[in-house]
């Protein structure tokens, strides 16, 4: 029972991290139909910025804020300089973001080397807690669930209680019709891109605190985001949450019970979902 519970907890906490990473990815796709292949690089950039700021300031929260602002600015520039002029040209945008992801990853490797880093966890979230049956468990990993719920609630409020969110939902429906009402859709697209980049920067700090920061994380989290949003449905926050939960649990339970095949379980789920629901569990045709 204990190994099962621990695997479930690990799965849920990993799902929480996957959700925070994938939420920005799915918002960008929903609004702009851009498959941002530089998403993983923005995760890594946020993690390194957060590490540097937290290391020099001694404050984890400062690291979080630094990563959020740094990646928001990077996202803003990325969209404004490279992507906005190619709106609607999916392949060109995907190739541009692949190129940028390689450049960003190499620059980070040059700057930080191949070492593995980890952010110091804030004192309040340091240490472990004893849970019934499961036993000791790190508080910060449990806090991941809280972070994910906070991000979910914040995004829900943004989307359903603000004019900004109303415009994002309208753009998900039909960018051309929204533009026909006179709303400056490219400007909002840039703002959404910056917001999504900021979210993945925050995810980088949280992931870099719960796990570690190392070259290659960019590819890992890009891949996990892709699988999560394909399973959940592109452009859908609820879908990203359910997709993250499925993939997080599948990875951890797979590791515990079918270690030989664990690597393929997530992809098997993705293939099954694509076969029966091509737009994902909560997605709909673009």
């Amino acid at each position, binding site marked *: 029972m204990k190994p099962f519970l621990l695997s479930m907890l690990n799965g849920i906490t990993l799902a929480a991290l996957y959700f925070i990473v994938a939420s920005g990815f799915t918002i960008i796709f929903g609004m702009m139909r851009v498959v941002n292949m530089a998403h993983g690089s923005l995760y890594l950039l946020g993690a390194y910025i957060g590490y540097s700021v937290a290391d020099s300031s001694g404050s984890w929260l400062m690291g979080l804020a630094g990563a959020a602002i740094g990646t928001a600015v990077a996202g803003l520039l990325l969209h404004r300089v490279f992507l906005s002029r190619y709106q609607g040209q999916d392949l060109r945008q995907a190739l541009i973001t692949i190129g940028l992801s390689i450049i960003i990853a190499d620059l980070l490797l040059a700057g930080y080397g191949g070492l593995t880093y980890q952010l110091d966890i804030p004192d309040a979230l340091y240490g472990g807690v004893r849970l019934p049956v499961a036993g000791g468990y790190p508080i910060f990993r449990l806090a991941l669930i809280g972070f994910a719920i906070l991000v979910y609630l914040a995004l829900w409020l943004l989307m359903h209680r*603000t004019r900004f969110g109303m415009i994002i939902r309208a753009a998900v429906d039909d960018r*051309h*019709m929204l*533009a*026909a*009402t*006179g*709303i400056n859709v490219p400007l909002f697209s840039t703002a959404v891109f910056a917001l999504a980049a900021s979210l993945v920067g925050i995810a980088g700090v949280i992931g870099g605190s719960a796990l570690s920061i190392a070259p290659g994380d960019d590819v890992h989290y890009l891949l996990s985001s892709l699988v999560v949003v394909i399973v959940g449905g592109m452009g859908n926050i609820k879908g990203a949450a359910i997709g993250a939960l499925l993939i997080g649990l599948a990875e951890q339970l797979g590791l515990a019970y079918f270690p030989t095949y664990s690597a393929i379980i997530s992809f098997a789920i993705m293939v099954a979902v694509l076969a029966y629901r091509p737009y994902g569990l909560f997605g709909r045709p673009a």
Partner: protein
Amino acid sequence: MTVILEVDNISVSFGSLRAVRDVSLQVRAGERLTILGTNGAGKSTLFNLISGDIAPTRGSIRWQGQPIHGLPAPARTRLGMSRSYQTSRVLHGLSVADNMYLAVQGVQRGRFGFRVPGADHPFRQAARQTLAQVGLQGVDDELASNLSHGEQRQLEIAMALASQPQMLLLDEPAAGLSPSERPELVALLRSLPRDVTIILIEHDMDVALQVADRVLVMHEGEIVFQGTPAETAASPLVRSLYLGYTGDEDEA
């Protein structure tokens, strides 16, 4: 009447296809102009050029004397040009009230509030008045996707009117409407005040000729006929393009 829109020798090509070829036209303020043509004639492409959805390969467009062919679509909407699309393109995931709110908000300049405004907001009130104008009432809280096709068409026209445009570009507003809904559409279009200029693309000749002051016929990207509704109805060329015969054969 003053000329509000001038299109001068405009062309656009998609690869080797010249969808619109050296089209020139002038539209006077308050005029009802209908553009007829078979599928692929270039009517919607001409609309997209005027509204700014696509850029011309060459030629110019002037709005109230000012060149606008370099402006994006939202900027043209804010200048007073509003459009609907060939297929119903309301914002399906939003309520009718929110669709209308965005249409009113889109042309307003100044402070962008963060919170979704309540029902007593001036924009909401203006939106309700416009919905009433097109005969769509009591559905404010309905999701746009739940409306019937005819109601979605009404909502689309209401959204176009919500920006208080000087010119309406309506792309086949009767498409998909039942025979009983078409007279209502004609009545609605005829009831619009003359300070709104209307350019209409329509396949339904009855709708087109009842609304129009002047008719243009396009064929293979070019304007091939201009005239009054009566001249259009009597034109052998138009009958030939639409029906494949001129009518003279019947008499032979």
